């Protein structure tokens, strides 16, 4: 019995055949696809990760073929977003504390629960090395794309809270099992799980009804450090292992943002901006003493939602567009447009005067013709969605600066965290006015800082001090009651800034 294996890679795609039960890494190797596997296919290094459509990330050396599959070989680019280190990562002595004492081969798990994806990092607590990284789709996605829709399911329905809680627990369970299978680690050796996420996700994992977050005054039930019992949650890991939820600031500034900030080096010093552009569009301004934070509610346009041909950043999504040249993730045939592609295309349209500074187009802009039946294009409404989203972020930046009394000239760095931020072409982002032109040479893309923060919290028990220090210095700005917001927002909707 032979199966079809379709291979998508940065440089092209092809379909090969494979025998029933053959190991994916061998099949790929025979065809000349080099998969980096320092452990030589022993299943211990976790470097040979590939993405199988519909199945997620798997270790190629462990995966046996029993059906037709599509393999997306991660370009180095893809994995680097998740990779926990960059030059601005805080350096901390390895000091894992209590969890390292619970076993002689202790392993910690750091989890970053995003609304769309969940990332797992397994850390060897004897030396601090990263053993495995797994990415999972948040299984709650069937209950709505954004946190508000999911909370909406829970209003007056305790059953739904429980259900959404269990979905997250299931994801944690299955990724722990995957790790155990992949590495031969014993369940009892997993001695700590440290979790970051937006405030709503933290409520769900704790099994707490997040409803209050969705109604004015948007007060969460908790923001403090929470310790859950792994056994009570049904996780059969080390009997004394704890699940630590890192603290948040407010309903819309979660521990993902705070841990991300804490993961940055002290030497960054001075005044810097920090943003993680997802659906909530959090923006933070940090000075040596005080910190200001707000959530701009940009919406999911940059995640491809509400865009006629929009898509998540997955295989087939147009992720870059330069002078009419299209690049897609995994180099497969264009299928949709993800956030970074969208920003590039609109920047291109602005340069070519295909869209007016006010956002008016004369006809839809055709990006790609897919056979006779389908065209991938940008419509008038798509432009409007982008205008609203980028104006919200730009207005948030304006307001933080005004509140702090600083100007653009005082800002030394502008840290862009998160997946979308990492792939984004900063030139295009400035062109469309998502980021201010004045900060052009100060932009720094750092990948998944939230995940880095969670990992650091396993590596050092003193990391929590950094987090508490940040929390004690941060003021949350509620934009809903901010008198300047409407003016700043509206004056940033046009592409050419017409700030008065």
């Amino acid at each position, binding site marked *: 019995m032979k199966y079809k294996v379709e291979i998508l890679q940065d440089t092209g795609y092809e379909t090969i055949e494979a025998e029933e039960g053959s190991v994916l890494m061998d099949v790929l190797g025979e065809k000349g696809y080099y998969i980096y596997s320092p452990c030589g296919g022993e299943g211990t290094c976790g470097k040979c990760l590939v993405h199988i459509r519909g199945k997620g990330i798997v270790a190629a050396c462990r995966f046996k073929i029993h059906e037709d599959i599509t393999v997306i070989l991660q370009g180095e680019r893809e994995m680097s977003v998740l990779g926990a280190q960059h030059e601005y990562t805080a350096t901390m002595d390895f000091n894992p504390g209590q969890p390292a004492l619970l076993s002689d081969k202790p392993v910690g798990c750091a989890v970053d629960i995003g609304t769309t994806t969940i990332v797992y990092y397994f850390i060897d607590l004897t030396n601090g090395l990263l053993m495995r990284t797994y990415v999972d789709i948040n299984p709650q996605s069937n209950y709505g794309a954004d946190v508000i829709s999911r909370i909406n399911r829970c*209003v007056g329905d305790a059953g739904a809270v429980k259900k959404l809680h269990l979905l997250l627990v299931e994801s944690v369970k299955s990724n722990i099992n995957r790790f155990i299978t992949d590495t031969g680690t014993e369940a009892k050796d997993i001695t700590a799980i440290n979790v970051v996420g937006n405030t709503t996700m933290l409520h769900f994992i704790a099994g707490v009804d997040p409803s209050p977050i*969705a109604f*004015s005054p948007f007060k969460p039930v908790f923001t403090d450090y929470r310790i859950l019992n792994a056994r009570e949650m049904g996780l059969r890991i080390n009997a004394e292992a704890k699940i630590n939820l890192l603290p948040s600031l407010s309903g819309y500034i979660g521990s993902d943002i705070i841990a991300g900030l804490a993961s940055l080096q002290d030497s960054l010093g001075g005044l810097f901006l920090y943003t993680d552009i997802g659906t909530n569009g959090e923006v933070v301004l940090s000075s040596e003493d005080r910190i200001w934070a707000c959530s701009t509610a940009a919406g999911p346009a940059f995640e491809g939602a509400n865009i006629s041909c929009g898509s998540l950043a997955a295989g087939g999504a147009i992720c870059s567009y330069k002078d009419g040249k299209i690049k897609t993730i995994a180099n497969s045939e264009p299928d949709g447009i993800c956030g970074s592609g969208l920003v590039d295309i609109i920047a291109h349209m602005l340069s070519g005067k295909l869209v007016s500074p006010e956002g008016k187009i004369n006809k839809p802009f055709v990006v790609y013709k897919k056979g006779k039946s389908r065209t991938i294009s940008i419509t008038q409404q798509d432009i409007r969605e982008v205008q609203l989203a980028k104006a919200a972020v730009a207005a948030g930046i304006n307001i933080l600066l005004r509140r702090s009394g600083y100007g653009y000239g005082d800002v030394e760095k502008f840290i862009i965290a998160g997946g979308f931020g990492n792939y984004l072409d900063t030139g295009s982002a400035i062109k469309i006015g998502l980021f201010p032109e004045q900060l052009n040479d100060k932009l720094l893309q750092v990948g998944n800082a939230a995940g880095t923060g969670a990992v650091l919290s396993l590596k050092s028990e003193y990391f929590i001090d950094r987090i508490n220090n940040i929390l004690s210095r941060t003021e949350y700005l509620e934009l809903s009651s901010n008198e300047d917001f409407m003016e700043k927002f509206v004056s940033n*909707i046009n592409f050419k800034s017409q700030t008065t």
Partner: protein
Amino acid sequence: MDEIIQKISSCIEYGKINRASPYPPGMKDQDGAYELTRQALDRGISPSEILESGMIPAMEIVGNKFSRNEIFVPQMLMSAKAMNAAMEHIKPFFISGEAKRKGVFVIGTVAGDLHDIGKNLVAMMIEGGGWEVIDLGVDVKPDKFKDSIRQYPGCFVGLSALLTTTMENMKITVKELKEQYPHIKVLIGGAPVTDDFRQKIGADFYSPDPQGAVKYLNTNRVLQ
């Protein structure tokens, strides 16, 4: 039509508030809606003529352009500001009775929701359509709407909601208002709201944009 009324009209259409305003660049250093309305009144043109032949038709053009997606929020807001500037001179005549409004429109963002940009635009466009607008602000509980209904008999009510979660409060508000005042007409809108939802909750009218609401009010006011 008088040339000056024509001019007021184009100031409103293109958002020229007053002489000092730099916007739009093409009308720099010219008189704006504010100055021209004063001049028109000084020349003896009646306030209702300025309103009905100059201001309202201009706002209608703006509203229609917005509905067709030809202009967007900033341009509509500039037009509304120009209209407000002209209205400053007209307002005293509403009190004296020399000029009349078409009726009263009460609007607010429903309980639990603080989004008001869309609601503000709707309020401005309806005011520009010749209506008196009572804006109750954001996070408005049903009782507050009821107070206004008692205070302005025959008014129309508009509800705005931007959150999936507060659409439920919109439903509750409509229900409460209709129970106590069965003849009151309730208009609803906001990004997540649809006409299906309107039907489900028993509201009278849904519009994705302000101009639809203006049209509805104009055609239904005699019936009230």
